[in-house]
C-alpha cells in the first residue's frame, strides 16, 4: 500500500486535483520547488480566491505540502513509484512564523536584481511565512578560522549599523582591534571579488568598527557578546601563555563561569602579539584595551610566572592546587637555527629575540633590554644588517631596524618573491621603507674576526627546481656563484617552534613529527586527560593569530564539555557544515570598482618612530568599501532577523532534508515547458495537465483508484453541550501576537476586565495563538479546568472549518493545531491532532478589527476589544443543547442520461468501489428521502446519494431536470451550462458540448470527492432545526435555494431536518423561520439577541450610563 499520490506544482489545476483526491480519501503530497505556491500560471481566479483555494488544500488533513523541495529521483513504475525528495532549507520554522515582517525590516542585504531582501515574504502566496535566500555559507565566513560571520558584519557596516557589526564580531572573537590590524585575512583570499578585481578589504572594515567602538563615550564591557551561560562554577582552569590562543580560551571559559588563571612568563601580556609584532603594526594600547576587558571579567593574569620544572610551578603543582584542566597555549617562541658555520658568533641574533628586545625595551622600565639592543647594534645607525628569511618576521625585523636608524638593511631569501610566505602588502611597505630584498640568495657561511664578532656573510645564488614537500619549488644552488657581503648584524628569521621547557621529561605529553604538541583535532586534548593545547604550540601549517584564536575557542568549548561531563570521555564533535555559497551572479553585479586605499602615515613620519603606519578608514570610506561586497550568501548571517523575530521562528543552521515516498501516481501540474525535466527521470507515466485548467485537474484525479468506505458521520459536535455538564464553564484566551498587537492592546488589563463575568471561569494570555505551544496549553487547560467552551481573541475570525477569503496561513495553522479540521472520530483515535473533548470554540478578531484600525486610540481599542470578547462570551453561552447525530452513509451515485460521458463516469466510479447505477432514460419522477435520491422504475427502487446528469443533448438535459423536479425535492434544481455543478450540492452535470472523456472524468472525480467531503468535515455553519420548536410551516423548504430541508416523518415526531450534506450554511432559512427554530449560518437568533444586548449594554457601561 503506497503513501498516495504525488502532485507536482501548486497551480489551480494541481490544487483542484489534490482536493478532489483528498476528499475521496487519498493521501496527497504536493510538491513545489519554489519556496511558495503562487499564481504564476495565469489562472483566471482573482488573487483572493486563489489564496483561498491554496489554504483549503493547506488545511486538509490528507494533503501535505512540500514547498522548497526538489524531486531528485523517480524509481519504479506506475502504481508503485519510489520518489526521492530533497527539501531545501527554508531557515524559517513554518510552525512558528507569524509573517509580521519584522525580520525583513532589519535585514541589511538587498539581493541584487530581485528588488527584495535576503529574507522575504511573498504577498498572497502560501505558505504565508518568510523564507531566507541562502545558498550556503559565504566563502569569507567559511574561511574564517575564528568562525566570524564575516559577510554579516560587512553587510551591517554597509548599512551604517556599526554597533551591530562590532557585536556580531564579538560573538565570535574577543580581539576585533588586534585582528583588524594584523590578521592574515583568509576571508579576503576567498572573497569572490577576487574574480572581478580585488577583494573587499574586510580586515580594514573590522578595524574601522573596532576603532569606532573605542571612540564611543561608553566603553565596551564585555569582550564577547556571548551571554554568560552559567553563574560561577566551582572549577578552576589554568591557561599557560597569555597570547591570543590562551586569552581567547580564558575569555570564553570565564564567560561560562569558570575561575581562570593565566600564567605568563614574560613581563607583558600578549604573547607573540606584544613581542613578535612591532608597535607600528599593532599599537600596544590596542592590545591593552582588549586585554583589559578580559581582565575585568575576572580572569587572573600572572606575569613573570614561569611554569615548568625550572619555573615557579610545575604542571603537577597546578593539579595539586585544584585546577581541573590545564591549557597549554605557549606559542612558538623558540627560533629555528640555520645550521651553518658561524651561527654562534656575536652579532648573529634570532629575529624574534631581536623583536622581543625592542618591544620590551619600549614597554618595560627594565634596562636590560635596552642594553642588549645597544650591544647588538654595535655601530649604531652605521650597522650594516642582513635579515635571513621571507616571512612576516623577516619583514618586521627589517622595518624595525630601519626605524632604529639603520640605513643599510637587506633581506636575503632563497626563493623568489612569489614563494615568500609574508603578505604581499607587507612586502610592498617594506621596500618602500628602503629595505632591499635579495631574492634567490642563500647563506653559506658566517664570517667573523678574532674577537668573535660577525664581519660578513658568504652567500650563494639559487635557482628554482621542482617542488618539495611543502609544494614550493625547491631552491638549487648555482655552482660557483659564491659572493661575499660585509655585515655587522645577521638576523635569522626562518621559523619558530615551541619551547617545551615547561614539560618535565616524564610528562607523557606526546610530541608529533612536526615538533608540536599532539592533540585531538576536534577537542584539542592531549594524550594526557585534562591537559589541552592550542595555537602555535600544536600546529605548523596554520600559525597565525586568527587560527590561534579559533583554536583557543574550540579548545575552551572542549574544556567546558569535559569538565561538565565529570571527566567522561570526550567525543569528537563534528558540527554540521553548510555548503559554501556559490551564487550565480548577473553581469551587472560584476562591474569592477577599485578597492578603497587606506590612508597611511607618510614615509618621513613613519621612520622616525614606531607610530602606527596604517591610519584606518573613515566612516564614509568604510561604508563605501563594505558596499563592494557581492553578497555571496546572499544571506549574510548577520543574525539581525533572529534578534528581531518574536516567535523565535528562525533556524539558521537548518539542514536539507532527504526523504523517500512511495506513491502510486504522479501528476504534473506545473509549467508545461518544464515537464521534460520530470519525464526524463522515469520510464513510467506522468499525468500532465494544464496548470490553469481545474477541469483537467479533476480529470487527472479520476485516474487514481480510491478505496470503498462506509463511514459513520458525526455531525454537530461543535455545538454539543453534553447533558452531564449543565453548567457553563468558559475559558477566555487573549493573544498578544508577540507585542500586545503592536502595543495597542494592554492584554493584562483586558484580561482583568474579562475575569469579572460569571460563566468565565478561566482566562489566560497567549504569546502567539498560532504557535503549537498555545494549542497544547489550551488543551491542557480544558482538561484541568473542565472547560466546555473556549473564546480565543486573536486574529482568527471564524470558528468553522471553512476557509474564507480572509483566512491566512497562520489562522489555518492555529485551527489545525486545535483540530478544527478533523472529524471527532479521527481525533479520538489520534489525540495529538486536536481536542477530543466536546468543546465549543469561538474565535474573534481583535487585531484587524480592533488594534490595527484604532492605533491612535488605545483606550478606545481596549474598550472595543472588551465589547467583542463579551459578544463572543454571550454567543457561546447561548449555544443550543443538542444531541449527536450519526448516520451511516454509503457512497452511491446515479448516472442519468445517454451522453457519452456516462460510460466514462461509470468506469471511474465503479473502479473506486462506489455503488453506481446508470439509467439511460428516466421514466419516473425522482424523490428525496433520508439523504438519498430514489425512484421506482420498472418495478425496481433505485437509490443513491449523489447524481450525475449526462445528457446527450440539451433537450434530454431539460427532460431529466423535469423528472428531478417532478418529485418532492424542492426547490427546483437547475444546471449551469459549461459548469460541472448545479444549483444543488451533490448534483453534477456533464455538459454535452464538452469532450465526454474530459468532463466525464472530471465530474466523476468531483462527485467522488463530494461524497467523501460530506463524510469528512464537521460543518459548523450548516442548519440545525430544534425539533421541539418546528411547526412544519415549510417556510424553510420554500426559501432554501439548495434544497437542504427535509421532512422527517416519524410517528411521534414530525419536523424538518436539514441535510448537512446539501446545506450551504447561508442562514436564510433561519432568518425566515417564524418559530426561531433554526440555528444556521453559525448563529441562532437567540445568540444574536444576547450578543447585541450584552455588547451594547457594555458599550453604555463604558460611558457610565
Amino acid at each position, binding site marked *: 500500500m503506497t503513501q498516495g499520490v504525488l502532485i507536482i506544482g501548486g497551480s489551480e489545476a494541481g490544487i483542484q486535483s489534490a482536493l478532489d483526491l483528498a476528499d475521496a480519501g487519498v493521501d496527497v503530497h504536493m510538491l513545489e520547488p519554489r519556496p511558495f505556491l503562487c499564481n504564476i500560471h495565469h489562472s483566471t481566479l482573482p488573487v*483572493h480566491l486563489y489564496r483561498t483555494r491554496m489554504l483549503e488544500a493547506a488545511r486538509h488533513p490528507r494533503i501535505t505540502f512540500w514547498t522548497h523541495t526538489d524531486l531528485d529521483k523517480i524509481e519504479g513504475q506506475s502504481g508503485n513509484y519510489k520518489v526521492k525528495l530533497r527539501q531545501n532549507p527554508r531557515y524559517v520554522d513554518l510552525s512558528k512564523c507569524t509573517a509580521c515582517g519584522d525580520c525583513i525590516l532589519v535585514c541589511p542585504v538587498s539581493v541584487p536584481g530581485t528588488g527584495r531582501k535576503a529574507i522575504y515574504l511573498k504577498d498572497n502566496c502560501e505558505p504565508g511565512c518568510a523564507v531566507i535566500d541562502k545558498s550556503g555559507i559565504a566563502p569569507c565566513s567559511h574561511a574564517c578560522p575564528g568562525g566570524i560571520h564575516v559577510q554579516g558584519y560587512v553587510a551591517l557596516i554597509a548599512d551604517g549599523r556599526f554597533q551591530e557589526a562590532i557585536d556580531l564580531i564579538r560573538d565570535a572573537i574577543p580581539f576585533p582591534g588586534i585582528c583588524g590590524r594584523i590578521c592574515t585575512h583568509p576571508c579576503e583570499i576567498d572573497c569572490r571579488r577576487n574574480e572581478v578585481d580585488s577583494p573587499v578589504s574586510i580586515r580594514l572594515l573590522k578595524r574601522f568598527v573596532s576603532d569606532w567602538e573605542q571612540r564611543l563615550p561608553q566603553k565596551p564591557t564585555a569582550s564577547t557578546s556571548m551571554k554568560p551561560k552559567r553563574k560561577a562554577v566551582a572549577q578552576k582552569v589554568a591557561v599557560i601563555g597569555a597570547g591570543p590562543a590562551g586569552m581567547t580560551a580564558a575569555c570564553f571559559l570565564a564567560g561560562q563561569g569558570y575561575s581562570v588563571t593565566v600564567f605568563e612568563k614574560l613581563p607583558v601580556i600578549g604573547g607573540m602579539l606584544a613581542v613578535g609584532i612591532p608597535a607600528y603594526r599593532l599599537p600596544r594600547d590596542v592590545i591593552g584595551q582588549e586585554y583589559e576587558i578580559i581582565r575585568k571579567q575576572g580572569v587572573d593574569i600572572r606575569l613573570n610566572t614561569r611554569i615548568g620544572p625550572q619555573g615557579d610551578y610545575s604542571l603537577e603543582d597546578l593539579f595539586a592546587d585544584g585546577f581541573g584542566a590545564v591549557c597549554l597555549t605557549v606559542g612558538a617562541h623558540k627560533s629555528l637555527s640555520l645550521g651553518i658555520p658561524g651561527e654562534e658568533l656575536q652579532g648573529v641574533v634570532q629575529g624574534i629575540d631581536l623583536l622581543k628586545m625592542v618591544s620590551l625595551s619600549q614597554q618595560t622600565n627594565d634596562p636590560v633590554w635596552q642594553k642588549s639592543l645597544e650591544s647588538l647594534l654595535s655601530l649604531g645607525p652605521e650597522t650594516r644588517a642582513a635579515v635571513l628569511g621571507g616571512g612576516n618576521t623577516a619583514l618586521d625585523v627589517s622595518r624595525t631596524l630601519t626605524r632604529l636608524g639603520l640605513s643599510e638593511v637587506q633581506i636575503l631569501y632563497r626563493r623568489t618573491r612569489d614563494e615568500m610566505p609574508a603578505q604581499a602588502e607587507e612586502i610592498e611597505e617594506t621596500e618602500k621603507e628602503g629595505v632591499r630584498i635579495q631574492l634567490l640568495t642563500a647563506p653559506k657561511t658566517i664570517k667573523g674576526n678574532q674577537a668573535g664578532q660577525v664581519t660578513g656573510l658568504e652567500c650563494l645564488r639559487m635557482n628554482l627546481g621542482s617542488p618539495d614537500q611543502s609544494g614550493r619549488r625547491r631552491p638549487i644552488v648555482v655552482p660557483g656563484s659564491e659572493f661575499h657581503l660585509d655585515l655587522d648584524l645577521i638576523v635569522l628569521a626562518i621559523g619558530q617552534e615551541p619551547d617545551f621547557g615547561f614539560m618535565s621529561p616524564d610528562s607523557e605529553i606526546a610530541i608529533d613529527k612536526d615538533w608540536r604538541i599532539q592533540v585531538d583535532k576536534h577537542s584539542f586534548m592531549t594524550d594526557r586527560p585534562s591537559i589541552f593545547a592550542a595555537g602555535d604550540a600544536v600546529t605548523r601549517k596554520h600559525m597565525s593569530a586568527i587560527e590561534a584564536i579559533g583554536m583557543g575557542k574550540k579548545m575552551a568549548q572542549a574544556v567546558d564539555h569535559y569538565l561538565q561531563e565529570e571527566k567522561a570521555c570526550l567525543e569528537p564533535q563534528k558540527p554540521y557544515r553548510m555548503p559554501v555559497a556559490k551564487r550565480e551572479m548577473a553581469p551587472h553585479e560584476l562591474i569592477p570598482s577599485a578597492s578603497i586605499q587606506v590612508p597611511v602615515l607618510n614615509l618621513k613620519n613613519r621612520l622616525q618612530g614606531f607610530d602606527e603606519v596604517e591610519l584606518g578608514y573613515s566612516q564614509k570610506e568604510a561604508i563605501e568599501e563594505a558596499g563592494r561586497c557581492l553578497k555571496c550568501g546572499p544571506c549574510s548571517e548577520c543574525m539581525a532577523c533572529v534578534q528581531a523575530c518574536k516567535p523565535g521562528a528562525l533556524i539558521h543552521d537548518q539542514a536539507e532534508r532527504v526523504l523517500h515516498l512511495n506513491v502510486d501516481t504522479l501528476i504534473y501540474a506545473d509549467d508545461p515547458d518544464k515537464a521534460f525535466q520530470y519525464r526524463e527521470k522515469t520510464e513510467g507515466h506522468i499525468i500532465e495537465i494544464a496548470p490553469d485548467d481545474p477541469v483537467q485537474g479533476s480529470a487527472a484525479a479520476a485516474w487514481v483508484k480510491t478505496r470503498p468506505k462506509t463511514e459513520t458521520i458525526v455531525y454537530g459536535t461543535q455545538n454539543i453541550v453534553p447533558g452531564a455538564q449543565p453548567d457553563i464553564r468558559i475559558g477566555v484566551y487573549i493573544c498578544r501576537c508577540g507585542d500586545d498587537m503592536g502595543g495597542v492592546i494592554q492584554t493584562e488589563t483586558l484580561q482583568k476586565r474579562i475575569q469579572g463575568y460569571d460563566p468565565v471561569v478561566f482566562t489566560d494570555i497567549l504569546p502567539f495563538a498560532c504557535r503549537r505551544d498555545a494549542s497544547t496549553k489550551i488543551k491542557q487547560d480544558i482538561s484541568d479546568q473542565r472547560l466546555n467552551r473556549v473564546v480565543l481573541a486573536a486574529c482568527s475570525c471564524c470558528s468553522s472549518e471553512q476557509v*474564507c477569503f*480572509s483566512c491566512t496561513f497562520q489562522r489555518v495553522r492555529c485551527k489545525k493545531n486545535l483540530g478544527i479540521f478533523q472529524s471527532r472520530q479521527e481525533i479520538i483515535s489520534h489525540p495529538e491532532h486536536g481536542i477530543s473533548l466536546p468543546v465549543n470554540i469561538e474565535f474573534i478578531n481583535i487585531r*484587524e478589527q480592533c488594534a*490595527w*484600525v484604532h492605533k491612535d486610540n488605545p483606550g478606545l481599542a481596549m474598550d472595543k476589544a472588551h465589547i467583542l470578547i463579551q459578544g463572543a462570551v454571550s454567543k457561546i453561552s447561548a449555544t443550543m443543547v443538542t444531541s449527536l447525530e450519526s448516520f451511516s452513509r454509503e457512497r452511491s451515485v446515479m448516472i442519468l442520461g445517454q451522453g457519452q460521458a456516462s460510460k466514462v463516469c461509470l468506469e471511474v466510479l465503479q473502479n473506486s468501489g462506489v455503488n453506481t447505477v446508470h439509467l439511460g432514460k428516466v421514466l419516473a419522477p425522482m424523490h428525496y428521502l433520508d439523504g438519498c435520491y430514489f425512484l421506482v422504475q420498472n418495478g425496481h427502487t433505485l437509490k443513491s446519494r449523489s447524481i450525475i446528469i449526462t445528457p446527450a443533448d440539451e433537450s434530454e438535459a431539460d427532460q431529466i431536470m423535469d423528472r428531478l423536479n417532478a418529485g418532492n425535492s424542492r426547490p427546483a434544481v437547475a444546471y449551469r451550462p459549461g459548469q460541472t455543478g448545479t444549483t444543488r450540492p451533490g448534483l453534477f452535470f456533464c455538459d454535452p458540448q464538452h469532450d465526454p472523456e474530459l468532463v466525464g472524468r472530471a465530474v466523476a472525480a468531483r462527485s467522488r470527492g463530494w461524497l467523501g467531503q460530506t463524510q469528512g468535515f464537521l460543518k459548523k455553519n450548516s442548519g440545525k432545526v430544534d425539533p421541539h420548536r418546528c411547526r412544519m410551516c415549510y417556510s424553510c423548504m420554500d426559501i432554501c435555494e439548495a434544497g437542504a430541508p427535509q421532512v422527517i416523518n416519524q410517528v411521534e415526531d414530525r419536523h424538518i431536518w436539514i441535510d448537512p450534506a446539501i446545506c450551504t450554511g*447561508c*442562514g436564510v432559512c433561519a432568518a425566515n423561520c417564524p418559530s426561531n427554530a433554526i440555528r*444556521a449560518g453559525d448563529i441562532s437568533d437567540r445568540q444574536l439577541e444576547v450578543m447585541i444586548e450584552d455588547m451594547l449594554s457594555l458599550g453604555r457601561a463604558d460611558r457610565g450610563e
Partner: protein
Amino acid sequence: MENKKLIVFTCNWNAYHGMETAGVEGISYDSRVIPIRLTCMGRISIGIILKAFEQGAMGVLMLGCPKDECQYDTGMHRAEEVMGKTKKILGLLGYSEDRIGLDCLEAGKGKAFADRVGEFMTRLTAGHPASRETTKATFARSG
C-alpha cells in the same frame, strides 16, 4: 450621540474581507463600529435589526457581496427584502430612514469599507436625525 455604537453586519465573504483589508492596511475608521459577522446577509431578519435599536444602537449598517457575486446566489436579494420591510417599520416607530443602510462591499477594498462607514456616520450625525424623530421612538429604546 458621541458614544453610541454603530452595528455593522458583514457577510462572511466579500464584505468581511473588505473590513479585514482595512485592518491589514491600517486604515482607521470610527471606533464606535461594532462588527458582527454573519455567514450571508440573507441571514439578517427584521427582528435582529430592531433588536439593535431597542438596545440603543445609533444605527445599523449591512454590507454584503456585490451584485451577482453572492456566495449563496440569492442572499443579497433576501437582505434587500428585509431592508425594505424594516425601513417601513422603523418609519412607523419614528426612526429616520438614515439609521439603517444596506450596501455591497467588494473583497479586498479596505478603503471602501472605511468610506462606507464614514459616509454612514456622517449621515447619522449630521443634520441630527434625532431631532426629526418623533417621541414615539423613545419607548422602543428603554431596554
